[in-house]
């Protein structure tokens, strides 16, 4: 049998990447280009009128205090959700990493929120936080004699959305942390114990640094999750309200597109989001390995 000489065939590498290029072009690049084009027009509902407007949509967005507030709000939301979420998940993963009886059941319990859809998760939280018949207010009333206006006050609604999003994404984080924890060899812990380190020192000096590759990956994934996937939870729980307190960028985009019927404005917002995600990805590639401790 004759050995194939791939170098002599100029087209082979191109043929090999062709299938994935076709898929990427159809489902990623083409829609992206369409969005960019759409963002330069003002379009009437039903597409009956289409007027070229240059960068007007972008100018309108950045001069609109509602949009600027929404950007800031989203940044705060993403930061709190990611750091809160990762901290809670890390603690929980250390707990479910113990060799306990029935540990698989506990792990499953913590993973379930990730498996349900955002819509269901949002509805569950609405039931729990309901001011009239909600369980959370019932217990708060019983224990501390307070009634919290969860979804009708801007501040508490924002907190409620953060809690729901953290709870929803916890399963994903726990799975990765658990895998990370289990890949840290026991010998490292043993020698630390022999040297007389206490539990906190072990956690601080061994577990956290050795988990850093996982943590870094999770931060990037969580940024993307919280920007894009929190939409379902916001839509069910608060619809961006009260008084815009939970109107994060992805929800505003949805509303401009599907409720206010301004495709041009919505397309401009999606282009801005795309640029933001590109920046995150750039940092991921460029600084991905710095400060991250690989064993």
């Amino acid at each position, binding site marked *: 049998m004759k050995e194939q000489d791939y170098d002599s065939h100029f087209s082979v590498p191109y043929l090999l990447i062709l299938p994935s290029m076709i898929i990427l072009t159809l489902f990623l690049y083409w829609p992206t280009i369409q969005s960019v084009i759409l963002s330069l027009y*003002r379009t*009437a*509902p*039903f*597409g*009956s*009128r289409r*007027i070229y407007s240059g960068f007007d949509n972008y100018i309108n967005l950045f001069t609109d205090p509602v949009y600027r507030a929404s950007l800031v709000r989203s940044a705060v939301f993403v930061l709190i959700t990611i750091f809160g979420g990762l901290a809670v998940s890390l603690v929980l993963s250390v707990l479910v990493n113990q060799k306990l009886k029935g540990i698989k059941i506990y792990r499953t319990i913590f993973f379930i929120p990730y498996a349900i859809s955002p819509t269901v998760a949002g509805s569950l939280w609405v039931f729990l936080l*309901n*001011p*009239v*018949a909600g369980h959370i207010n019932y217990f708060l009333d019983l224990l501390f*004699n307070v*009634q919290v*206006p969860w*979804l*009708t*006050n*801007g501040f508490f609604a924002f907190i409620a959305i953060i809690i729901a999003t953290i709870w929803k994404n916890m399963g994903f984080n726990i799975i990765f942390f658990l895998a990370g924890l289990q890949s840290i060899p026991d010998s490292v812990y043993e020698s630390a114990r022999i040297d007389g380190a206490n539990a906190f020192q072990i956690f601080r000096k061994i577990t956290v640094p050795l988990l850093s590759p996982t943590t870094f990956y999770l931060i990037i994934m969580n940024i993307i999750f919280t920007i894009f996937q929190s939409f379902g939870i916001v839509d069910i729980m*608060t*619809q961006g*309200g*009260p*008084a*815009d307190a939970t109107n994060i960028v992805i929800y505003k985009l949805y*509303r401009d597109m*599907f*409720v*206010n*019927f*301004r495709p041009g404005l919505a397309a401009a917002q999606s282009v801005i989001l795309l640029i933001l995600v590109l920046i995150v990805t750039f940092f991921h590639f460029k600084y991905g390995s710095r400060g991250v401790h690989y064993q």
Partner: protein
Amino acid sequence: MRKFSVLMVVVLAFILTFSAAAQEPVTIEFWHAMGGYNGEIVNTIVDRFNESHDDIQVEAQNTGSYNDTLTKTQAAVQSGSAPHIVQIYEIGTQVMLDSGIIIPVEELGREVAQDDSFDWGKFLIPVSNYYNVNGQLNSMPFNSSTPILYYNKDAFEEAGLDPNQPPQTFEELKEYARKLTIRNEDGDVERYGFTLGIVGWFVEQMTANQDALLVNNNNGRGEGRATESYLDQEPVVRFIELWQEMVDEGIMLNPGRGWDGAKQAFLSGRAAMMIESTAQVTNFTNNAENDGYELGTAFLPRPEGVDRGGVIIGGASLWAVRDHPEEELKAAWEFLSFLSEMEQQVYWFENTGYFPVTKAAVEHEMNGQFFAQNPNHLTAFLQLLLSKRAPSTQGALIGTFPEVRQIVEEAVEKTLQGDMTPQEAMDEAASRVDRSLEQYNSLFE
């Protein structure tokens, strides 16, 4: 011989199938936003139509909420697969008129279907007034409702109020709510006097009830389009003020945005009065019977000394899409005309609580003693019929109405949270609406 007869049967079956295919009925796609129980009623009516019309097959499809239905229709139009008939909420009227895709039902009936027997005056005037623009009926009125005040008569008696004297003015509403509110020894409210969901529709209705306009140019029904909103004027602001004062005083429950919270509070006895759609009359009456209290209904309150305007018809209507073969348009007309017949109207009304929209159906219900036996339905009806005939109660035509509603809802939330005074919030809302109108109108210059 046996084999031969089997073969004959098979051949016969084939012939029958193909001959049936040759006379395949015209298929009409009908998109609607009626879910749950009301959706089943729609399906029953569609089945009745299909059974009585061999040559037409109507396929009804639930396309989600009103807003989803409008969105899906837009997408379908752009991909060339629009339905024949689509149910659009009343605030989508201007968008549909501007869409360039619809055929006004009056043109459909008169010119395409050449239906001379159809009586265009059969609709109740407050209903047809809303959908009559540019001198013709543009869409077929379908599910219509208005808001009314619901109250718990037993709670009135407990509080020493006359259950047959519901509040008529803003001042009375507040005074009654104060008396109806019950606090426990800790000072927590056990029962609120009044509740109202944050829904822009109520603001529109309370404005019309004071015979005031929501936007300029005769509510957008005059010479030109609406260009300026009146949200910052007294009729709107004083209602928002009342709302904020009552919530602040703790005599009114703020259940947040949307319909469900307020409804739940009223039905569970956490609030003694509320304003809701007349489409809930049957539901609320049944609930009161099951829970053993008496339900009262009344017209919407208005400020003391202000003349009564009335209510605007809410709900949705059916629009026909032009871009279909003539044969299919005729079939669509056949279905729309069937829906406006008395029998269907009565069935629809008695099962869903939405108003019958034709005079014949109302007469039938009068003769059948329906209103005598259901006084709460009578309240709903009288309020509509006694409404003044003016642009204020005809309802506003605004191209960006869904957005306007949201702006209003946000403004209400801002005042209830104490971020702004009612006047400040409505000033801001008015300027946002003006900007939205300007951007929309510039597309159609």
